[in-house]
């Protein structure tokens, strides 16, 4: 520093420009955040009542439950195999059906593969609406419609998966290199031919990767779908919770943990290969 300064022939005064005045804006943004936060904590208008006293009073309850869960009752294991298998099958079937549905829909929702703005926006809008409804809300309503069982669960998973897979894949197609498609168009192909011969082979890795991701999420979701009667191991969770069998609950949670982490690892390995 000093060496460079000394070497400079003619000294000019380097005036440091004044710091930009950012604080008025920071104050406004901060005040807005604080106001919103305060508004969310007023029970009278529906906000959350922050009840620290109950934590001080009852925290031992929570520790007891966690203690019970940490000493799992393994005698429940034989009863869990069938529901666990059902959960995995639901996840797999849901992912498979949604993969089939997602391929044409993604091509439909991406700009390079569907130049028609009207149908593209229509597909995107419908999928935005589908994505805006949380998974268990679908399950609750569908169970009331078609009855208890795996069917409402699978439909829930399909709706959920199609929503995210199509969003992620169509975004991948949007940002992908469109040169092949241009070549296809220059060679005189129509849109269907271009999509089939250029866009589709180019997007398989993205589709496969997102379907695997949705399978991961499915295992997690289908584990709790049973809470509302949509099949799988959640049914057992609900039952054990009703009997306050937290030691059995610990076993089930442990099982879900192992399965979810195993599938996550397997899917990560596969997805690395796909890139």
């Amino acid at each position, binding site marked *: 520093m000093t060496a460079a300064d000394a070497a400079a022939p003619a000294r000019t005064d380097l005036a440091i420009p004044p710091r930009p005045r950012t604080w008025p804006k920071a104050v406004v943004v901060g005040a807005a955040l604080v106001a919103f936060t305060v508004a969310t904590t007023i029970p009278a208008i529906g906000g959350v009542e922050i009840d620290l006293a109950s934590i001080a009073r009852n*925290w031992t309850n929570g520790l007891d439950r966690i203690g019970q869960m940490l000493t799992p009752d393994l005698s429940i294991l034989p009863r869990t195999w069938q529901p666990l*298998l059902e959960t995995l099958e639901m996840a797999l079937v849901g992912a*498979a059906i949604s993969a089939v549905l997602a391929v044409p829909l993604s091509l439909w929702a991406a700009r390079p593969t569907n130049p028609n703005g009207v149908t593209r926006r229509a597909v995107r809008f419908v999928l935005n*609406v589908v994505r*805006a409804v*949380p998974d268990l809300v679908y399950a609750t309503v569908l169970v*009331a419609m078609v009855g208890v069982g795996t*069917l409402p669960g699978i439909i829930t998973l399909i709706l959920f998966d199609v929503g995210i897979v199509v969003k992620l894949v169509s975004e991948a197609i949007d940002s992908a290199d469109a040169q092949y498609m241009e070549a296809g168009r220059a060679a005189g192909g129509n849109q269907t031919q271009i999509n089939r011969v250029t866009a589709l082979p180019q997007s398989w890795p993205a589709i496969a990767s997102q379907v695997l991701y949705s399978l991961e999420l499915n295992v997690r979701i289908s584990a709790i779908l049973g809470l509302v009667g949509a099949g799988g191991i959640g049914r057992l969770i609900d039952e054990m919770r009703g009997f306050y069998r937290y030691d059995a*609950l610990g076993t089930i949670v442990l099982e879900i*943990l192992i399965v979810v982490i195993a599938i996550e690892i397997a899917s990560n390995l596969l997805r690395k290969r796909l890139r």
Partner: protein
Amino acid sequence: MTATATTASATRLAIPAKPRRLAVRAAGWAATVVILLAFWDIDLEWDKIAGLPADLAHYGALMFSDPNWSMLGEAALQTWRSVSMAWIGAILGVVLSTLLGIPAAQGVGPAWVRLPLRVIFAVIRAMPEVLIAILILTVTGLTPFTGALALAIGGIGTHAKWTYETIEAVPPGTAEAVRASGGSLVEVIRWGLWPVAAPELMSLALYRFEINVRTSAILGLIGVGGIGAMLTDYTQHREWDTVGVLIIVVIVVTMVIDAISGAIRRRIMEGAKVRGVERQH
């Protein structure tokens, strides 16, 4: 195809054989078999599937042909309760995840801190929020506060992971400069990492809120209140015209919040549009 014909006299352009990729094919067949087995074993009620379109049309008409708009006020109150849960849960969750996530980043905390933290994050990631809420409600009861706490703790799993991944993706130059001029660990974090990572982290925090808005509706199903609880009640009483209103409210609120939050996130990540100023880098 015609191109090969014209140049055939000079050189024969043989198209190379397609790669066989036996392993990929075997994996594909294995996956197909497993999926077919799942279909066969899962005991799909085919008679129900046949009646499905008619069912959906029937209930769809019940829900949306004449929605019971008089419930809108109650629905708005419960929605605000859900949004509050999501917001408080996001604030608590983001603060906890930032505090836990920074030491879990490579180059910040030592290995004996990093690895246990990452295991904890992975365990929480695998736990559905509903289960976390079932545990917490033994402490704070069936209240929206339970929902907020469940969202906060459940959020740590993914959010802390995003936090340390963001910190690790920060180019090491600034942190190194602070260290070289004698900065302590805290000073490295404050001046080397935080200014670079902050926009991304804030954007992720807003994204956490968007996710929480969806999840808070789910938590309502176990009875912590909000729009999810209301929806369960009316579904169980099969008051479909009200259920229709509630579903419309959920969709509109979620999409509006996503749009606002998305706009703010873009503003944070891309900065303000520069007007009338010649800017060099």
